[in-house]
Each structure stands twice: as C-alpha cells, then as structure tokens.
C-alpha cells in the first residue's frame, strides 16, 4: 500500500478578496476559456466582501462516487475523482451527493468536473493575489493549529 498525505486546496476567508482570479485561471488552464462556470474551484460569497473558496476535498468514500448509478465515477490517484465519459449520462446525482458543491456539471458537456489539483501544483494557488489559497492536508492544518496555540502559551511566560 502506498502511503500518501491527502492534499486539497483550501482558502483563508480572512484573506480572500473574492476577486475570482482562481476561477479564471482554473478555467483558462482546464478549458482554455474565460468562464468561471467551468472552473473546478468556486468562490462562495456569503455577504459582500466575505468569501470562501470551494474545491474537491477528496473524501475517503466520496458520496459522488458511491451515488453514481452508472458507476461512471471512481477514485483515482491522490483521491482525484475520475469520470468515465462513456458511462456518464450527465444525470447530476453526483452534484446532489456532494455536501460542498465541489463537483458540478460542465455547462456544455454536462459531464461532472471537479478539482484534480493540477497534478500537485494547482494553478489557483499559484495566481491568488492575496495568497489566500493553499494546497495542504488535514495533518498540516492540525500542525499549524498546534503551533499557534503553543505560541500563545509561550507568550504567557514572564
């Protein structure tokens, strides 16, 4: 068994300006066009100025894969969702299954699209002008949280 760290793209809502350059560069890279609805990462605007980025979390037992009645979806390398075009009929049940809204149907082909991490170097992370995006793992997030809390503890020393 290959041991790997599960990676995904997350955003820091405190830094994210909602400019949607991530959507743009994703659509440009994956589809060669400017069209945010073809992006694999999407910005959710909760209130003017308050935004969060949503991309595939690469679930261990992805509901989108489990729910697909035609078994068109499977889990590939690094947890990336793989779509078999021949089997998929664009029914969209995978979209319903995803609690995050991270998988959507391509507006033209109606095939599911989701983040594939650009092979490990996501375009969105590279171009985010606010450095609000990062590719990270649950383990890293926890490590950082532990470090921050420990630093606070240190500050209480005289």
């Amino acid at each position, binding site marked *: 068994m290959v041991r790997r760290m599960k990676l995904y793209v997350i955003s820091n809502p405190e830094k994210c300006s909602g400019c949607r350059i991530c959507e743009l560069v994703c659509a440009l890279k994956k589809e060669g066009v*400017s*069209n945010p609805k073809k992006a694999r990462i999407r910005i959710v605007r909760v209130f003017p100025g308050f935004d969060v980025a949503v991309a595939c979390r690469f679930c261990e037992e992805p509901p989108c894969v489990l729910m697909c009645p035609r078994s068109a979806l499977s889990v590939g390398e690094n947890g990336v969702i793989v779509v078999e075009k021949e089997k998929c009929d664009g029914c969209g049940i995978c979209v319903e299954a995803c609690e995050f809204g991270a998988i959507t149907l391509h507006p033209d082909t109606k095939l599911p699209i989701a983040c594939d991490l650009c092979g490990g170097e996501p375009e969105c992370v590279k*171009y985010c002008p606010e450095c609000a995006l990062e590719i990270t793992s649950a383990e890293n997030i926890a490590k950082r949280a532990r470090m921050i809390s420990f630093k606070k503890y240190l500050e209480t020393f005289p």
Partner: protein
Amino acid sequence: MPAHGHTHRILRVNLTNKKVRVEELNKGILDAFLGGRGVATKLLYEEVPAGTSPLDERNKLIFMTGPLTGTGVPTAGRYDVVAKSPLTSLFGAASGGGHFGAELKFAGYDGVVVEGVAPKPVTLVIRDDAVELRDASHLWGLPTSDAEKIVKEELNDFEVKVACIGPAGENLVRFAAIISERTHAAGRCGLGAVMGAKKLKAIAVSGSGDVGVHDPDALRQEVLELVKRKDVLSAALSAYGSAAFISYVAKSGAFPTHNFKALSSDFKDGFSLNDMSEEVISEKLVIKKDACFCCRTGCRRASRISSGKYEGELGSGPEYESVAAFARCGCSDVDMLLKFQNVCNELGLDVVSAGSAVSFAMECYEHGMLTKEDTDGLELRWGDADAVIALLEKIARREGIGDVLAEGVRTAATTLNAEKYAMHVHGLEIPGYEPRALQGYALSLMTSNRGADAVSSMVMLVDAGLSTPLVQDVSAHASADAKTSLLKELEDWMQVFDSLIICKFFGLSLKFEQLTRLIELATGLELAWSELKIIGERIWNLQRLYNLREAATTKANANAAALPERFFEEPLQSGAAAGNALRREEFEMKLREYYGLRGWGVNGVPTAEKLQELGLGGEENEALRNIKS
C-alpha cells in the same frame, strides 16, 4: 459572427409590450465606438428622439459591457449604463463595478437596452438564453439589499448577480443610483430614476457561456502576467482602498468640507478630517479586503460599524467619495460615515449628489433660508450625522423638504431662491475635490459632458501629483499648453476605458502599447494607440453633440458661468492652496484654448471639419442646425 471579445448580441427589452428580442450588434458600430459607453452613446444618440424628457417612456436605459468584459483582463467585470440624465437633461452615464458586467457577458450579451414603461413593477431575469419579466410588485418599496435577497431566493440561485433600485429610484429622486451586488453603485446622473420611471425594480443575470477572444493563448499569457503585477497606484489602493486618496488630496489643500465653504484654519466646530482618515477607517471599520471581478488590487473593503447605536452593522468601504460627501455635511464621525454610505446604498442614492443635497440644505438652514418649520422639525446643523440620515430618508421618500431636495440642488435652489449655495454644474452636483486647489480639475468640471464630473478625466489625481505609466505616456504627447492638452487627452482615454470596460485605476497603470495589445488579443482589432485615442475622441464629441442637440443652445456647453460663484468670489482660507480662487478671465482663456485643441469653434461647438475627421460628419451634423448661441 465569431465572438471576438464581443458577443455581437444586444438584448432589447420593451417593457410596454413585454417584447424581448436579441439583435445583432454590427461590426461597424463596434469598430467605431469599441463597446461599453461608446456604443451606448451612439445608441442613445440614434434611438432616443431629441427633446425626450428623461423620465418619459421614450428614454432608453442602456446597460453595456465592453470587448474586454469577462475576458479575464483584470477589473473587466464592470458595466456601464447610459440614458438621458434626469438631473442634467443631458448625456447621462454611470459605471458600476463588481461582477455584474462579466455575468452579463457570460450570459451571452454585449448589452441590454431597456425601452418603454412597465404597467406595474417588474424584474428582468436573464439566464443565458432564457429571458423573462417577472412581477416585482412585492419588491416595490424595499431597500436594495432586501430586494436582492428576495430575488435570489425566488430564483433559488444565490450566485445570480442583481442590479436594482431602492426607494429613491422608485420615487424618481433625480440622483437615484443603480446598486448592484448590494454595495456597487452606478451612481451618477440619476439613472436609478430612469429605471424607476420604467418600473424596472431589478435585473438579475446569470450566464454560463465562454467569452470568445481573438487569440486565447496569447491573451491567457498576458492575463496571467497582469494578475501578478503590482504598481504604485495599485499598492496604495490595495493598502487603503480609495480612501487612500484622503490624505493625498488633503495635502494639496483639495479636500472640500461644509458644502465647499472657504473655512479658516482655526475652524473646528467638532469637525476633524483626522477622525476619518484612511488610517482610522482601516483601524476602526475595515474587517478585510474585497475585490471586483479579476482585480488583483482589491481596493474595496468589507467593514463593520465599530461603536454607537449602529454598532455591528456591516458595510463596505467606505469609499473616498462617501468620505468627501459626509465631510461636506460637516460630519467626521467614522462610524456614522459607514452608516451614511449604507443608507445611501440601501435607499439607492448617489452618495456624491446625496451629500451635496444635504449640505446644500444645511447651508440654507445656517442662513435661515430653511427653518425647522420647513423641515418638519429637523435641525439641519453642520456635523449632525443623525440629521443627515433622517434627511436622506426624507429625500428618498420625497417627504416634506425631501421632495424639494429630491429634484437635485439646481432645481431645489431655484425653489428656495438659494442659488449661491447650490454646488453643481449643469445640474450635476460637484464631487469631493476642491476646484480652487486643483485648477486643471476646475476646468474639467466645465468641459465634462456629464456636468460636474471627476472621473471622465481623472485629472484631479494628476493635478494632485499622481504619475502613472498612462499619465506619463499622455504627458509625453501633450502639446505646448500642457495642462489643457493633458485634460483633453485624459478625457479621450477615459472614454476608451469606459468602453472596454476596465477600471480607470487599472487603465491608468498601463502603457499605451499594453492597452492596444490587450485589445488586439481580445478583438483582433489592430489599433495604433493614436487610432485608439481617436475612438475616445469620437465618443467624447458625440456626447458633446448630444448635449448640444438636447439643450439646443450653447449655454449648456462648457462656460465659466456654469461654475458656482463661490469658486471665483471666495478664496480658500486654509490648507496648501490658501488664497486660491478661480479667475474668470483666466478660465475663459483656458476654455478657448481647450476648444482650440478639440478643434471646436469659440462657442464650444465642434466644427464640421472636426466631425468629418472623426467620421461624425453625417446625420450627427444635423444636431448643430438648431443650436442658438
């Protein structure tokens, strides 16, 4: 037709007979006028009959995108809106930021022309090719954020982009704004009242199409470079938002307060600009950055009121013009500043004109020309922020004195016999820069086709010392009478920006060659920068012709008599420009110089040769026949 930046599709919506149709936008008009404000100017000129009253059903409300909109070029998510202005009865235009313009392009349209009047309130819903008019009776009377929220809920689409009017637009307040995405205003010229007259409460748009461009790979490379780049202007805006201009402008002695009164340096009366400096705004109000579509700078802000009775209320910015409008009312409480901007956004009022109307009333009150009896007991004392808010509500609902002020300061001043306190040019209230301190800007107030207008030249920032790549390029080509020439050139370039449509802050940071390259990659049009500039000049001249046609006299033209007397009679008493007043003779001379540079006659009317040169020699020339000098 292959989509090159443009979709070549215009959506025509007739509200009277509920007919909706898609029309092809021909290449000729796009080549001559680029898109955005340029094309809208041409459509307004051709389609709205001379002499149409701005609130008449024959006036048209034209929403436009440009060839760069939605291509991913930074800041190109804006939209432009054009109609005959209810404030000036001349050319009216405004521009809104955010994501609305890009979404309209993704839906497959270069623009939407709204015609006629709906029998009862409607919302125009555009979802790609599906276009419908929905009843909006239940939204009528609602503030903009509530209206937007309900539209989204009813469409069950929380990412749909909504532009709407508030109570001010519905009640035909002549400086009503169109508000998109709750905090972006297409504010100036009162186009919200045109929307209100048409009983169009909101436009909701959602698009899923690509924006086709001439050379996708090369444009992609260019865009990827541009989204990474930072420059001086963008660094300042990134750090403080447009509020960054406060101390910059104040340093030049060009930050007006108290309805442009010339105040001595020991004047206090509880007012201190330091209480709402960009640092204070950042510290007390700002939570985080916010940005328009594909903008790397992010000059916008998400903010929260930090204390007082509105503590906790969220908002945006505040923007420079809100700060300046609030200061003109003698107010400097930073928390109330955000409340002021929020109220303007919710009611759908242009902050610039709203601040001017209130400060005009305050000065009338100071001189006893308005009393408590006239204001239903409201004491309009300088610096009373609660009174400001209360008066804004009255204006938006046309209650009591609010009904008088809702007509704009020009008309209100006639009613109250208080012309000398009415700070406007041709009916459009003056923005937040002091003309006595920035004399190039003072001239631009005279020459602008919208009336008192800062952003159709941006010369006020150049006057205050701003230098950017575009300004350097323009300066290098300016002629001997440098200042006047610079103004003329900047006016033409700003028409280009408003037609492409890109944010002026971004446009100013480009060099000529970068601009022409972006256009070429998006549209395939290979334009030398000089050819591009002529398009700007063509647009400017057509707006001028429109104004001459509508006013049927050169009096509505640029002339020093149109500027408030205060700027000539009352020298500034404090600040870096203390002692400055405008001089009529000098002004008239500069205007003649300007007319000369424009190739216009001494009365400011474009000559036949000039129009010929710009390709406006045909029917446009007709406009000049009936003009009285």
